[in-house]
């Protein structure tokens, strides 16, 4: 659902054995917008529900991200606003590439109100560009523009405006407006905190081309307890339900169920995350109803500012394996 808008936040939409590479940097939300967690209340009033794309994030963060080949990421923090990173990716299934990523984002956060825009740019060794820009037009209104090109051709150009009220969020997105081809995709999101822990909302997608037009309505609801969150999206395009549970300080568990009418298939997944800060490691594992299992181990090599990632994904039904190794420096 909403595949064009996948790049707006949820880079994990591409499940194992797809050819697209996810962009982990897009997943981190701006800290002062999405904290504190939804089940905490401020001053007895209902908290702001956050953005629509972030509804399933707490569950999706538990699942391991597919890694393939050898990847080395060198992060450099140039100042409190500027960060640059170089990524070298050697891969067996797709051409190897070098990627340069730079962001202008205020990194010291939580209490401060940030008026500075967030600009993120990423350039590929084959010439593909990925650019995000986020502007705070006022304290409650923010505007976002996303451009994505594949070498010299523009794949996505998307503009979004979001208004955050006291206990609701409303957003309108226009994706790929094309005057010459008379095609556009408009998406409207609305989320309202109904009572403590319960958030209800909906998404309306309207797409129009030269020969066809159509609309899809999806309703969403999220109920959170002290250490769990249950979310449901249901509409004509399919259903997506997820449950996240924090068992204790070390173990988090997520269960996800996805059904799509477009591809006529359903998938159920179970994932867990285990953190052992004394051993400097985080392990994420996943089991799928498509007979895919995967595990990713992240170990921080403690005196050095480096993290080692090792992961493997096995598809038992097709007897395929994807192994990945990664090093993040800085």
């Amino acid at each position, binding site marked *: 659902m909403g595949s064009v808008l996948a790049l707006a936040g949820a880079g994990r939409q591409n499940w194992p054995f797809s050819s697209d590479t996810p962009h982990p940097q897009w997943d981190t939300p701006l800290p002062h917008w999405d904290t504190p967690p939804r089940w905490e209340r401020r001053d007895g009033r209902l908290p702001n529900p956050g953005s629509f794309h972030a509804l399933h994030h707490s569950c999706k963060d538990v699942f391991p991200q597919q890694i393939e080949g050898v990847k080395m990421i060198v992060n450099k923090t140039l100042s409190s606003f500027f960060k640059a990173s170089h990524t070298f990716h050697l891969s067996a299934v797709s051409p190897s590439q070098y990627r340069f990523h730079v962001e202008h984002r205020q990194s010291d956060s939580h209490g401060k109100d940030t008026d500075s825009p967030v600009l993120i740019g990423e350039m590929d060794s084959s010439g593909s560009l990925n650019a995000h820009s986020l502007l705070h037009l006022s304290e409650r209104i923010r505007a976002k523009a996303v451009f994505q090109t594949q070498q010299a051709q523009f794949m996505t150009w998307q503009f979004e405006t979001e208004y955050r009220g006291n206990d609701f969020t409303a957003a309108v997105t226009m994706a790929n407006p094309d005057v010459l081809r008379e095609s556009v995709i408009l998406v409207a999101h609305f989320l309202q905190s109904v009572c403590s822990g319960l958030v209800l909302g909906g998404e309306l997608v309207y797409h129009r081309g030269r020969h066809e037009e159509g609309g899809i309505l999806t309703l969403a609801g999220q109920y959170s307890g002290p250490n769990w969150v249950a979310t449901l999206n249901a509409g004509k395009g399919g259903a997506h339900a997820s449950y996240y549970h924090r068992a204790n300080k070390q173990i988090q568990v997520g269960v996800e169920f996805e059904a799509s009418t477009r591809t006529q298939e359903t998938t159920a997944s179970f994932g867990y995350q285990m953190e052992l800060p004394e051993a400097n490691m985080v*392990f994420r594992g996943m089991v799928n109803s498509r007979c895919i299992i995967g595990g990713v181990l992240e170990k921080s090599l403690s005196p050095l500012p480096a993290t080692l990632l090792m992961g493997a994904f*096995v598809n*038992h039904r097709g007897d395929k394996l994807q192994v990945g190794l990664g090093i993040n420096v800085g």
Partner: protein
Amino acid sequence: MAGIEELSPAAGPVETRPPEGEIDEDEELDETILERLWGLTEMFPDTLRSAAEVTASGSVTVAKKLYSFSRAALWVGTTSFMILVLPVVFETERLQLEQQQLQQQRQILLGPNAGMSGGMPGLMPPAPVKM
């Protein structure tokens, strides 16, 4: 019919298998032992024979399926355990061993009273106060 007539002289000595006279004759028919044993089953009624055949073939099929299923299940189980559980087990074991080693080192360094981390080093036994 000629075989029946010949039975009477052969019936003098008590024999457990009266048709053996026929069998001596039937050696000319070149039956193997298996075929003879199979021929014995023809004495059972047809329903029993068909039921036994169905049961036997069914159990052979079940055994084959069970064998292949257990092979596949063992493989899937082992590789899934290897990928999902083993790294965590390795890391926790390593952590435990490291902590044990540290504890041992501390014991050697600070004397046997300093057992756990955070224990006060060098406790002297209380001297007798009463004089």
